[in-house]
């Protein structure tokens, strides 16, 4: 069971308290009606499915209930960093991911 750091509670807690919520940094378009069918399809269904560092959303559902973002290595299943919703994706070098 993973330990996950909630950036709002500033505490590292067991995975049981959290829920996964899909890929991060996919903002809902402010006016969806302006999007072509293809663009809207991509927004709905197309995801990066990264092998390696993946930016994803988690929710501290059995704690503060806030959504936040995380960088996780999908190969090692290790969390590299978590950060608050709305903050930009941190720069992570490949080295850090390997470590």
């Amino acid at each position: 069971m993973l330990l996950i750091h909630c950036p709002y509670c500033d505490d590292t807690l067991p995975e049981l308290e959290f829920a996964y919520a899909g890929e991060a940094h996919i903002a809902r378009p402010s006016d969806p009606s302006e999007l072509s069918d293809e663009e809207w399809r991509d927004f709905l269904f197309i995801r990066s499915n990264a092998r390696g560092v993946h930016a994803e959303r988690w929710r501290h559902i059995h704690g503060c209930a806030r959504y936040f973002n995380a960088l996780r290595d999908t190969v090692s299943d290790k969390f590299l960093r978590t950060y608050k919703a709305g903050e930009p994706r941190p720069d992570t070098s490949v080295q850090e991911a390997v470590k």
Partner: protein
Amino acid sequence: MTSFRVKDRGRVKADRPVRFSFDGVAYEGCEGDTVASALLANGVHLMGRGFKYHRPRGPVTAGSEEPNALIGTSRGVGRFEPNTRATVQEIYQGLTTESQNKWPSLKFDVGAINDRLYMLFSAGFYYKTFMWPRSFWDKVYEPFIRRAAGLGKAPVDVDPDHYASRYLYCDVLIVGAGPSGLAAALAAAQTGVNVVVVDEHAEMGGSLLSEPSVGINGKAAWDWLEATLDELGRLPNVRLMTRTTAIGYYHQNMIALCQKLTDHLAELPTDAPRERMWRVRAKQVVLGQGAIERPLVFDGNDRPGVMLASAAQTYLNRYGVKVGNRPVILTSHDSAWYAAFDLADAGAKVGAIVDTRNDIQAALMQQAKARGIETLTGHTATATSGRLRVKSVRVNPVRGGRVGKARTIDCDALLMSGGWTPSLHLFSHTKGSLHWDAEENVYLPGQQTEECHIAGAGRGLWGIAAVLEDGVKAGTAAVRALGHSCDAVRFDVSDDRTGNGVTHKELATDRSPGRAKAFIDFQNDVTAKDIRLAVREGMRSIEHVKRYTTNGMATDQGKMSNMNGLMIASDALQKEAPQVGLTTFRPPYTPTTFGTFAGYHKGSHFELTRKTPIDSWAEEHGAAFEPVALWRRAWYFPKAGETMHMAVSRECKATRESIGIFDASTLGKIEVSGPDAVEFMNRMYTNPWTKLAPGRCRYGLLLGEDGFIRDDGVIGRMRDDLFHVTTTTGGAARVLNMMEDYLQTEWPDLKVWLTSTTEEWATIALNGPNARKLLAPLVEGVDISADAFPHMSVAECTVAGFSSRLFRISFTGELGFEVNVPARHGRALWKKLMQAGRQYDICPYGTETMHVLRAEKGYIIIGQDTDGTVTPQDAGIGWAIGKAKPDFVGKRSLSRPDIVARDRKHLVGLLTDDPKIVLEEGAQIVTDPNQPLPMKMIGHVTSSYWSEALGRSIAMALVAGGHEKMDQTLYIPMPGHTVAAKVTGTVFYDPAGERLKVE
């Protein structure tokens, strides 16, 4: 019966006899014995039968890796356990055990005919034999496989024991309390950090328990062990746990431990758990799991009496049991020579030490000579004899690759050693990489992924001195990583038994290798020949070889067989072992009961049952219940002698003719409040909310961003900035999560607060023409007359003295009200309404009647009439979409090409030609019942009931292009007959909605 117990040897308590039984025969052992050691002390080697060929088998090990000696243990009803390893199960007074895989008896087993049919059961036999003819599958093959595949018999009674679960946090967890683990503990504990030491055995000490002749720091091994355990036991920062197996190593140093608490006790303590699962989070882990001896692979290496040399040494030194009076040693490693010496010193007549190697240390040769033991170096073993116990071994010299003339040596035990395999199971759980040591033919730990240290034989070291020193190193490294420094711990070891050896594939033979029954996986009966056949038939990776032959797939998880299988596969493939690979080790390390994993989560604790405040009334009044999500809901209220059908028809009739009362408390409720509440509602739901005045309510429809229906419910506007949202019973949490997601991450600028109020309110629905008559006298604070309080109104008021939110809504098509009161008043209000309703013959109804009444009106149930691919248009509720709104969740998707396509499945009504036939929900629908199979299915029945009001059956269905198929006849093929039905609209009853308008 001859006793093989050796006086003054072993750690068992010779003065404390313990009686137990095996296959109905009473035996006596000593306190401290396992079933295996006690049976061996009685001269019993035959403890089981092989799984495939039913060949007689005895224990081959003295530990948890045992593949052969699997027994059933029982101690009363519900406490039967199959596949217990006799080498691990401690005996206690009255223990009852039995052998497995035999009929009618262990000594004479009919299934042993499989042994004669050996050629039929080669690698991949399941795949080949059972392919055809197809018709044989159900009657012949499957029953055969099921019978053959069962290892032991499954218990049938409910397990009366309970199982506990605990968390534990520590600085250093040490797995294995052999010399490396204890040395690591001594080093780490002195710094004051929290140390936990676990060991799967009943007592700590590991290999020291089998090596009493070694001296440590001037003490005999066992004296040093006692002093060390005493010292560690006194430290407040050290916890020692025996009978505790580390079964899995998970992320971030979480280790699962299974602690066995009662399986060794004659008297079961009341209320004590049988086993306890510990989830340990350790800052540092030291793995001192040791090594497992490898069998040698030769014809007849599986007869009872053939066992690992180290096992014989353990039986002698730890349990005081000679496994035979005339043992022969067959080895490729120095370690087995010491087993020969110990046995000779205990009075056994060692027939010979047969070593595959030509050059042996002079010291070993001398010691053998001093004991008068014949030594045969550069020899191979080519056969054994003996049906229920090994009688002799056939050995041949090997010179320059040629196998010479055979010679037969009589024996009553054959003790083999093919070298040692470091135990890296837990390390492998962490996905730590393994490094192939081509010199020793072993895998050693490579790159780590977790904070762990491997010590001792687990990384290929040999000898007590080396292992102790390595343990100190690991313990020191662990505490250093935590920022502590510790004093050096040194050991002075005397009479250490160091040594080395070589490993083999199959031993050389002068006979046809194709006829040899040279076993690799004893439990699954996989031979060397099977591995080679698998390679010949195209298996290239060890993972394929494993699945084709079942090598390593038994309950011992390849502990004995992995490396021998790999050596032979790599030889057959002419590739280096690392290129052939290594099968993946997976948790649990040893077989673990389901009880341990389940812990407290059984019976009523398996899943919680949510009950409404009115549930107790329903129970007192004989309701039948059904589960809905986690809720238990009153399903119907049968009167004496009524069937479900009769009860539901009566409830429907009473509601339509006078008044019915229904507990709707399970409906999800969410309070949406704040200055931007209406904007939020506009964005979330399809409907327009701006113009909905406080005091009014509206049916709300929620889509996913993909345009498919997610949820629905009536939503009341209590104030400008406050909405009382209701959701489906099962959808409440999902809807709240979805709202929270949008609010937190897409529209954090909106000033809105969401509160789950599902359990704050009890909700009672009153439906029927007399609903207002019943309610009006009880209501204060609002006029509920038809004009003052029209359909789709909501008000805060009091009902029967309880402050309430009162809705005028209907899910039945009748005049209807829903009264929400604080949950604690729910039952009291229900009773008052029942009291007041007596004059109208008020009828409590359950979910089934609710379903029928709503279906008569064509009201959909999310998740029953929709399935996550249904749009508002498909469901015929396009009117719920606020077309003028610029945006809402899912709006853009409603114009996607696939969503506006013509032939989508639409929700329609179905009326069977024969009004008495009630269709089955889920039944498939076709246009032409005479088309050839497989028919083209165009939809399915989603809801179907007997309608008492209409005197016929009604149904709803999702049908491709259904809205264009009105009045067409479709067909529902059922087993043995086909039902014809006409497509209709979904509103079957009172289509004009006149009944809502009761004055």
